[in-house]
């Protein structure tokens, strides 16, 4: 931030603080309970009324290619070593009866999100079209939502220092386009659309095939549905250390990388 800006910001925040102090003594109701963007009915905050966006992951079509993982990083400029989506690749069974299992994961845009009600600033919320978003101008970086998500689908964006996660590529969806990972999905496993629309592909898939969600018992009512999910894959969490982590640490990559990050701001 430029000096100029920070000074202005200081003044602004200072005023806010005084205003708050004054208001606090008079009338607590003077604040809306919501963040400005929602109050102002900003379309980015409200979303597309009447629609309810969901994603279907048809695992029969997933080839574990990580195209989704990779495009998401580009489209959303997800910082180094952070991911909004990733496809876990595992093998189930014992030689020679071994099967491959892929689990593409992203924010589930839960109908009962665990992340939203714990947010003390209201920075994260569910739009009217079902997309759970974070307002990075409001988020104070407490991390409660990250702790609360049963799916590990949030992280602190290293660059903005605010909670971040998949937002169904709202920047595209709001323009009538599709999420980047859906656009690029090689196998066609990722299907996106408005579940309220009976002609949508997602509606058809969910009505023609049995589907499941991850960790149903968490009660979060995920809106990312899986077709062909083997329940064993859900127990991924009880496998141990990822070898990549060990190797990165032992080889000194972490250190090199952090140093490099300090040196060059620029990526891609």
């Amino acid at each position, binding site marked *: 931030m430029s000096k100029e800006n920070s000074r202005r910001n200081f003044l602004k925040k200072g005023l806010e603080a005084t205003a708050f102090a004054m208001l606090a003594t008079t009338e607590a109701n003077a604040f809306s309970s919501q963040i400005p963007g929602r109050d102002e009915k900003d379309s980015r905050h409200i979303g597309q009324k009447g629609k309810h966006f969901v994603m279907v992951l048809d695992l029969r*079509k997933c*080839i574990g290619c990580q195209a989704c993982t990779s495009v998401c990083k580009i489209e959303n400029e997800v910082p180094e070593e952070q991911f909004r989506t990733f496809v876990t690749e595992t093998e189930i069974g014992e*030689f020679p009866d071994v099967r491959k299992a892929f689990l593409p994961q992203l924010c589930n845009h839960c109908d009962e999100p665990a992340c939203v009600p714990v947010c003390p600033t209201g920075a994260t919320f569910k739009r009217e079209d079902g997309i759970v978003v974070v307002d990075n*101008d409001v988020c104070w970086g407490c991390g409660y939502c990250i702790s609360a998500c049963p799916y590990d689908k949030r992280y602190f964006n290293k660059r*903005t220092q605010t909670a971040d996660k998949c937002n169904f590529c*709202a920047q595209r969806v709001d323009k009538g*386009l599709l999420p980047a990972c859906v656009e*690029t999905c090689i196998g066609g496993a990722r299907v996106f659309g408005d579940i309220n629309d009976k002609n949508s592909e997602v509606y058809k898939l969910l009505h023609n095939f049995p589907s499941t969600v991850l960790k149903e018992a968490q009660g979060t009512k995920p809106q990312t549905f899986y077709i062909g999910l083997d329940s064993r894959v859900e127990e991924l969490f009880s496998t141990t250390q990822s070898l*990549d982590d060990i190797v990165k640490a032992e080889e000194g990559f972490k250190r090199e990388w952090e140093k490099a990050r300090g040196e060059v701001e620029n990526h*891609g």
Partner: protein
Amino acid sequence: MQSSRRKFLLGSGVAVAAASAVGYKDMLGSVVTFSDKGEKAKDSIYFNSSEAEYSYLNEKFVPNDAFKVCATTCIGCTTQCGVRVKIDKKTDKVVRVLGNPYNLLSTDPWIPYNTSIKESYTLLSQAGEFETYRSNVCARGNVLFDKTYDQNRVLKPLKRVGKRGENRWKEIDIDTLIDEIVNGGDLFGEGKVKGLKEVRDTKTPINPEEPIFGPKSNGFCILGTTHDGRVKTIVHRLLKSYGSANYMGHTSICGLSMRAGEAAYLGNFKKYPHLKPDFENTEYLLSIGTPPGQAGNPFKRQGKLLARARTEKNIQYTIVSPTQGNSDTIAVGGRSHWIPIIPGTDLAFVMGLLQIIINSKTYNASYLALPSAKAMQAAKDVSWTNASHLIIQDEEGFGRILRDKKTPLVLDTQDMQLKHADDVIEAVLDYQGMVEFEGKTYKVRTSFNELKENVNELSLEEYAKECGVSVDKMQEVAKEFVSHGRKSSVDCHGGTMHTTGFYTTYAVMMLGAMVGNLNYKGGMSPGGGAYKDYKGKQYNLFGYKGKSKVHATRIDKTRMAYEKTNEYKKKVAAGKNPYPAKDTWYPFTNALESEIITNSAKGYPYKLDVLLTLNSNFMYGTSGGEGHIKELISDPKKSIPLFIAIDPFINESSRYADYIIPDSVLHETWGIVHAWAGYQTKINTLRFPVVKPRQAQFKNGDPIEVISFAIALGKKLKLPGFGEKAIKGNDGKWHAFDKVEDFYLRAFENIAMDGKPVPDASDEDIRLSGIESYVPSLKKICGKNWRKTAYVMARGGRYEDIDKSYQGEYLSHRYKKPIQIYNETVGRTKNALTGERFSGTVKFYKQRFANGETFEKAFPKEHFPLTAFSFKSNVLSTPNTASTLLKEIRYTTYVDMNPKTAVKFGLKHGDIVRISSADGSVEGYLRLRHGIHPETIGVEHGAGREGEGAIDLEINGKVTKGKISRRTGVYYNKLGLHDSSRNTALTADFVCGSNARQAIPVKVEKVT
């Protein structure tokens, strides 16, 4: 309290308060000033995502003026998909890559070619037909444009300082560089180096004893990589003009076993066609050593088609491979099967299958009995074979097919008479005996008869023992395979890159002949071909005055039989056994990259003077490169006196070069590419710079890259075909060849005008496809056809519509020649080392050296208990090491081993292990997984780099540190073997010479 204590509290309190404030300064700084940490995101809700390139809401299309979206080609791997790149106009940088919906390698079904550009966008919106036309880019293609901006990219011409391989360079001017390589001299203070001018002697034989080897100008050799859209131009316009026969691509380290085996099956060693399953419509796919979805060509397309076929259609598929790969998913239940196999033994497995099919007579007999194209047409079939053709067994003419002039003779089943194949509807398939023709009796057998005998050489149990797959399993697969008839398909590729890969491929393909699947929907397809590009309606861009017809023996000893050399003739004349030759020869192989450095080092057939590599990384890519080639290449005296590399990066090979010439990267490049296989309609994908190339330029403004360098070099050497009057139009007019666009825009015009010319591009098309900046050049070069050429450029190429794929149950674009159940060329060729004839049809061999000595004997199990192989990464691919982002998705690679094996060797998940072959070793972290055959060790290929930013680089005295993330992983090819039966050579397929990277006997130990 005492005041001393008060003072103490006060003093220490103040001191600690100050220290704490300092410790908390980061936090306090923000709190006190209410200032934000980190960078401000571009948008409060959308974070840092870039704005959409257009919007389509309420049927209103609004392009975003901040960006342009251009169609071009991804060359993140050899698939070469057509993509669209979104470019930030302000920074001229690519911000996102999207699939090109016109291009079949990214899309299926792809949109009709005459769709307007605007509609090509709206179709891909929520309101369009997204689910139908979804167009995609893989993990690599999406991120790898970051390599364009890599720190290690070479932007200016470099000349080495210090010894070869030290990776120390200084920048030099391009004109100086060209001057030095043309004129030679004492360039490095290491003695005189011959320049290209001196080498270009097109008269004096390079080897006076062997005039057939051609003139001295063959001392100039160009080594490339894949066909990236510029290779043909270089061969035809630089090399042929110069007078050398020596161009090699990378096929011999890529998939030559497959290519040669299929060329044998298809009877075309000239064009090396190859087949791919019609993935989407096949009912049963038997894929041997090339799991679709894991890698393969076309990577995305076959992954996508397989995913669709197993979800929406009726496919069953079996993957035969030491490791399963990403073809499988538990989500599709019983449709997918895996047969684990020990590397290098699949020939036994396939011979077993053939034996079962042949002995049980479950093959398509009436199909195999079709002896000619005429019979085929009569039977309303779409392919035919030479199964019924008669092979002479007499000593004289042994192995030749019995013919009347050119027409083969067969026995008619009707009357058992010998007739012209054209006149027979059904020929005798299985025959061995005597026939009489024109008064001469011949001992003959049918191709099929020889095949039958060969497949029965070993018993099923013996085959099973060789490959470790049970007889029951083979029975099951054979039965399933034939049961789907013409909708059964086969595939093989990288898994055949071992010493018996040629016959393995031939055998795999032979399975197809048993059901007659060629040219059938759901069967095997030769690909849909392409529109005429270089030699087209408007121009023959390969024709020019003074182009030399080079008659020479290639440095790699391919396309040439030993029996034609004086060496052979002299020995015969002297009454000596002409065998063994000094080394192997490969008469029906196209090119052998993996042989040139070694051949030049031993001076057989001759020594090279200058090697020019184009984006080639023979060192890293060749099994045994590090172990055997490195030594030869690091000393200019040993093999290559002058080594020039064109490459945007300094890789494991160009590191040893004397000069490095920068090249353009990815979306900065001109070219025309096609699809390799696995598609049914015509396709030409274009490459043209859509962002400004970053490297230095020539004086005429062209950036330094392969073609512009060729122009400059050609002009300097005064070669024909460059400069004024170098390109002739079919209208008789002459044009100059000064800039790269002079050539490529004309090639694009050829494409546009081929057959029924394409329509004119509208202004809107041009604007929405970001090619406005090309309009002046288009007008200048293509004249009245400029809008047609623009039409093709706007769509990133020309593509036949999908409805042209099939004609009923047949493919539209078919392979016309007969399938070779017996290949005469092969059957009449001898092993130059032993004088043994190669088998003209499939036959079982064990892994072996060129002279026939088996690995089994050379590398006994007690010393080398496991067999190593490598498999391509589904994420990485070798040219993308300079992509930092890609490494975030696949950080490193491991030594993969079955847990059972690990227990046997006392190893644990995560241990550092050393694997060693007889000739090399490599270390890596051990990763245990059940999806790998217990007798093997597998390595994901593509990491463990020692180039492209992995090691320290010094330019003009400034050092750029090598990166751990590029070094990490296993450099598998260090295990590569030396062929002890040859002089200075790597193990290779004993027939076609492909570099043997699979099936390497190894041992493993823990590194403490």
